[in-house]
């Protein structure tokens, strides 16, 4: 099998034209657009001693912003895991009027500019807004609090879990359901013990992507956050504020932390997914 694959692989390399041209254009683009700008961050930080770097990234106000960002992003990701699982299940397993519309609506947060989402949520949930007025008598304050940050992060990352779980659920054969139910399992037990293990990799990937996206979210959050130092200030805003004060070194140091964490998470997700797929295919693939 693998010999045939190698043969056709090398054959197609010889047969189809355009290898040199597409390699050249791709490498030029990747170097100029993706890699060269990243080196500027390294260049900017090279002038710092380790102690100076450490002092900037562990400054009290910055650490507070990490806590707020990570906490809100974690809540947003978990909420989206549950909501996404529900939506994927309902959209795949049931037929009902308006289903196509609901399906299309799931992509709204990716299509809608983040600043638009931001001002809309801030207006709706402020004390004079429609939702704010509804929730204030119940003692819930959302705008300009930590909850508002999580809400905005959750909104912008809704599609991740839905769209990663949906195709996996579609590919599950009906026989699985039947086998579980004829053996006497209840719906809840069958879902937990039979369906969920199949969805697990997709669910974790989707939730992880939602978390990474929420860590970096800026446009949707700043309007509803209130941006009070130590309380509702996210890390992306800290970078932005430092830039406006022309503190490029400080901004770069904090940005390097955000960048390293996001890239490490993305890499970990990729590796974990790869291992899971290999296990499913009995060590191959």
């Amino acid at each position: 099998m693998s010999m045939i694959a190698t043969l056709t692989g090398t054959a197609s390399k010889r047969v189809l034209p355009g290898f040199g041209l597409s390699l050249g254009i791709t490498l030029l683009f990747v170097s100029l657009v993706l890699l060269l700008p990243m080196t500027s961050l390294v260049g900017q930080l090279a002038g710092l001693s380790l102690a100076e770097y450490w002092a900037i990234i562990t400054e009290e106000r910055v650490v507070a912003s990490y806590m707020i960002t990570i906490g809100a992003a974690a809540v947003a990701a978990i909420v989206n895991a549950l909501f996404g699982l529900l939506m994927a299940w309902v959209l795949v397993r049931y037929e009902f009027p308006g289903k196509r519309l609901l399906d299309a609506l799931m992509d709204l947060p990716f299509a809608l500019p983040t600043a638009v989402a931001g001002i809309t949520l801030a207006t709706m949930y402020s004390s004079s807004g429609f939702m704010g007025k509804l929730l204030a008598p119940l003692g819930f304050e959302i705008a300009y609090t930590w909850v508002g940050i999580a809400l905005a992060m959750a909104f912008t990352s809704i599609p991740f879990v839905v769209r990663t779980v949906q195709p996996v659920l579609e590919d599950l054969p009906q026989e699985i359901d039947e086998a579980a139910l004829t053996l006497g399992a209840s719906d809840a037990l069958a879902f937990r013990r039979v369906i969920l293990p199949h969805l697990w990799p997709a669910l974790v990937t989707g939730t992880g992507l939602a978390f990474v996206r929420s860590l970096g979210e800026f446009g949707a959050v700043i309007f509803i956050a209130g941006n009070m130092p130590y309380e509702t200030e996210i890390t992306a805003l800290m970078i932005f504020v430092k830039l406006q004060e022309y503190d490029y070194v400080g901004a770069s140091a904090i940005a390097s932390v955000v960048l390293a964490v996001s890239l490490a998470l993305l890499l970990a997700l990729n590796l974990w997914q790869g291992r899971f797929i290999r296990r499913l295919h009995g060590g191959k693939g």
Partner: protein
Amino acid sequence: MQRIGDAPRTRRLLIGLAVALSALFLLLPLIAIFAQAFTEGIDVFWNNLSDEYTLAAIGLTLLVTALTIPVNLVFGVFLAWLVTRFEFPGRRLLQTLIDIPFAVSPVVAGLIYLLLYGSSGWVGSWLDGYDIQLMFAWPGIVLVTIFVTCPFVARELIPLMQAQGSREEEAAVTLGASGWTIFRRVTLPNIKWALLYGVILTNARAVGEFGAVSVVSGSIRGETNTLPLHVELLYQDYNTVGAFTAAALLALIALFTLAAKAGLEWRATRREQFR
């Protein structure tokens, strides 16, 4: 055939919950945008829309999008051709690299471009010598927009071209077709819908990018203010209706994107059924 969760009560409960939550968290904000834009009537809406600075913002956003799309279209097609038609060392790495813009926070994306092309950066200071300023001007906005949107076309094309394989193109080669003819006559008809959707996604993101653009723009009214930045500016000025007027325009583009996706998906399933 019996399936999990098919009992009428479970079914009704889950559908009800899904519809209610989606209405509250997705539909309601969408409605709120248009409701806010029209609170003071249609005349005010038109007045806001024909404001000099709003028109300038629309113009700049169109310019940025018009320059971004062709660049990323060409790059996306070449990258997809490269990674789906050839085996070479570093192929996986290249596919991972292209996802970087999705993982990078928009503010960080703006920052790295500012560091490189700003007047203190090494490329920026070199260009300064020739009196070329990229940052806090429209070219900078175009550059970061290209960065932020570069994965979309390739991401739509790669899975499709991988699934289709290269047999048709190889047949065309044996019949003596040139590279350009193969692409135009064999590959393009197979990928045109995915390509179109990739362009629509690029367009949606290019029009709406906020974080990265706000770092490199300088937000000069009428000069370097894109439509999303204009939304922010009006909102900070307590001109809520004006802000939502511009926002409604952006929301319309978002709705068009969703409709286009639904349409293309419908087309794809119908074609499968007829096969």
